[in-house]
């Protein structure tokens, strides 16, 4: 019960008027930062970091954590409204969020995202409160072999469930893997696929550039073509009745949301993985276990809830290795870590013992940040939805501007803008040819991680391939991956047999 008293002390810190104001400010700023494609939590935290000296360290970290949290909520906004994932963590949210918006249910999709984020965030903070210290050892048990097995699992949960043309899915994964090898190779230090000697390719192709290109620009091109004959009007509005309806629909999704929360928390906790694979795995699992998997991808509310719970849970989970081991799981947590070092706090195994005030103040602020984020987010939904009622001719130009600014801002290279244009046209053509784009983007996100951990393991184990299955943790993941790969195939075959037997007439 010592923990409860510590947490109560923490609440005394986080509920002080200053810290409460800071949480609300941070969450609101984060929400908008996350909603802008190209501006993610990394940028938000980086901009605010040097300004945090005016407040005491515990308030400063609370501000940064609130921005981080707010941005996680905001990420869903551009995924749903514009179909552009603002961050890699929100890719899976576009799969069903965007179709919902196109059918005029943008408000409902955003409510689902906000509620799911809240549930994921809250469950994971509770898990964090109870298990933070013992779980640090589990994070340590993750070496390269386990990382590889986990990424493989993330791939199979998705691939196996593609549902579309399997050959096309595999082609797109291969293409994404090829794109992911561009840049400087970690192992040998040599540049690969830099097209002669274009310095822009040295740092590789960033996820954001590809996503903005194929989703943002590609989507605009596609919409221009389809709306030529019949101008597309999105009848987006939000009434209180719809709001109540949304909450009722969410109430039926407890199973999906709990799975998403636990999965998100555990996957996010592992330093290498983070929120992106977590959200994809949650989407995949929701789809396989669903009674009507075919409705996924066409605007199923469950397809928004699953990844949104998981990515928020994962963002809490990724604070765990940062605080207990001093290892940042993502660029944003790396910046938070930098901030803590600046204030003279040393994250690591001793932090919980030496700085309990700070740690529990931060943990309790995650609870308040969650409440603030869901309230502010829901209050702002009508504003977000209203943006969709703009005439298409205006909206389309604005989206293009957002795409270019969002692609240029993080690295400030024109090189990336040209790439976005190129990927936009390619994405449009691929869409016309009915190739799924998600596997392409996913392969780019997960590819480098998978390649790196695969090669690290082989180097460390002198080329012994069995190393992946000999270790208990990675062996379990590989077995699960194999299961996930085979399961849909079996279902597919069985389904076909059934169809032939039951409905021969059709």
């Amino acid at each position, binding site marked *: 019960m010592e923990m409860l008293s510590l947490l109560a002390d923490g609440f005394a810190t986080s509920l002080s008027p200053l810290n409460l104001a800071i949480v609300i400010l941070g969450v609101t700023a984060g929400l908008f930062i996350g909603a802008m494609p190209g501006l993610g939590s990394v940028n938000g935290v980086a901009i605010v*970091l040097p300004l945090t000296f005016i407040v005491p360290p515990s308030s400063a970290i609370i501000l940064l954590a609130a921005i981080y949290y707010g941005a996680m909520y905001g990420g869903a906004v551009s995924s749903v409204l514009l179909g552009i994932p603002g961050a890699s963590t929100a890719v899976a949210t576009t799969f069903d969020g965007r179709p919902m918006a196109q059918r005029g249910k943008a408000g409902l999709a955003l409510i689902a995202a906000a509620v799911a984020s809240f549930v994921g965030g809250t469950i994971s903070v509770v898990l964090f409160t109870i298990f933070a210290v013992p779980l640090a050892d589990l994070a340590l048990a993750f070496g390269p072999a386990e990382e590889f097995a986990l990424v493989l699992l993330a791939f199979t949960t998705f691939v196996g469930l593609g549902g579309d043309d399997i050959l096309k899915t595999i082609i797109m994964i291969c293409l994404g893997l090829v794109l992911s090898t561009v840049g400087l190779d970690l192992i040998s*230090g040599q540049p690969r696929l830099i097209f002669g000697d274009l310095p822009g390719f040295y740092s590789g192709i960033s996820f954001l550039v590809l996503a903005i290109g194929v989703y943002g620009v590609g989507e605009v091109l596609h919409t221009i073509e389809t709306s030529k004959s019949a101008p597309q009007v999105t009848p987006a509005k939000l009434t209180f009745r719809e709001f109540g309806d949304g909450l009722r629909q969410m109430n039926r999704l407890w199973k999906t949301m709990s799975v998403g929360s636990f999965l998100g928390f555990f996957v996010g906790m592992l330093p290498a993985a983070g929120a992106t694979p977590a959200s994809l795995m949650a989407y995949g699992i929701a789809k396989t276990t669903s009674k009507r998997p075919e409705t996924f991808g066409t605007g199923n509310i469950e397809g928004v809830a699953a990844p949104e719970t998981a990515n928020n849970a994962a963002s809490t989970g990724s604070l765990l290795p940062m605080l207990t081991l001093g290892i940042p799981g993502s660029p944003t947590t790396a910046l938070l870590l930098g901030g803590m070092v600046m204030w003279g706090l040393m994250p690591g195994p*001793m932090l919980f013992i030496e700085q309990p005030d700070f740690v529990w103040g931060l943990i309790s602020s995650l609870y308040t940040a969650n409440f603030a984020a869901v309230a502010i987010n829901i209050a702002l939904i009508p504003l977000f939805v209203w943006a969709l009622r703009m005439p298409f001719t205006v909206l389309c130009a604005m989206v293009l501007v957002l795409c270019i600014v969002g692609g240029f801002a993080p690295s400030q290279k024109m090189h990336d803008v040209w790439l976005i244009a190129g990927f936009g046209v390619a994405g449009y053509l691929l869409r016309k040819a009915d190739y799924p784009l998600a596997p392409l983007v996913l392969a780019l996100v997960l590819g480098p991680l998978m390649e790196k951990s695969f090669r690290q393991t082989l180097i460390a184990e002198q080329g012994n391939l069995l190393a992946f299955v000999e270790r208990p943790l990675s062996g379990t993941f590989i077995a699960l991956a194999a299961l996930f790969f085979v399961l849909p195939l079996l279902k597919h075959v069985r389904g076909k047999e059934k169809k032939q037997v039951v409905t021969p007439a059709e």
Partner: protein
Amino acid sequence: MFHSFTRRTGLAIAATALAAMAAMPAAAADWKPQKPIEMVIMAGQGGGADRLARLFQSIIQKENLASMPVLPVNKGGGSGAEALRYLSDNAGEAHKIMATLNSYYTTPIRNDIGVDIEEFTPIARMALDTFVLWVNADSDIQTLDEWVAAVKDAGGTWKMGGTGTGQEDSLVTAMLEDTFDLDITYVPFKGGGDVAKNLVGGHIDSTVNNPSEQMGFYNAGKSRPLVAFTPERLAAFPDVPTASEMGYDLVYWMQRSFVGPKEMPAEAVAYYTEMFEKLSQTEEWQTYTADKALMADFLTGDELQAYFLEERAKHAEILNSMGEGSS
């Protein structure tokens, strides 16, 4: 072209005249940045170099050491090749400075990127980061000799973790292999923190982490320093011997410095030099260097340039022996 020439000359003349007339301590007093100062970082967000650069930025901001804000910009592509190219394309700029690490020498040696670091303007060396040989605290190895024996026993399967191939950790490993005639399996990881975690998790056998990267685990009793690659013992680890005192010529540093582009105006150089000198005297910086076992060896001007060139020659030699040189 003509315009900038006259302006720069004019400024220089004015500065010289003023300095001569009033015997001002330095021309720095007259020149102030006219717009935000861009601090180019040779590494991506979140790594050790980035964290340190942002620490500098925050101290400058907090202590009001510059009249204009400092904006950190990450150009980490190609082990810093991106940043080096950027600086060399901005000759004569007075509002761009770059935070360097050892890839300042190694990147142009390993790949021909058309950059000669001799042309850049040295500003200030803030610190030298140190390297220490670490093993997991559960290991039986207590001394360097035991470590060497264990590596030899492993017959080539000893796993040393470190940062990317061709970067600092791999150079230290190559030096160890060379000195003791060892055969080590080098496993590259993405950053020092990742390396430290893998050592504590038992996935690799030893590392040559900077003290700042292992400090958290060391304080928790999870890792053990064996030997420091410094000329003298580190204040943070008084019981850890140095390789030099054991008779081995193994000294390696990571330099943390600032440079400006080619032909940076002299007044600007003086301004930044003074700014960093003040920074090096702040309490925050002094505490940080003491906590993280950094050597705060401040160096500027021609001496710094001589140091850079000497280090470059040394790195070319090590890289050559590793078979990593570009030609």
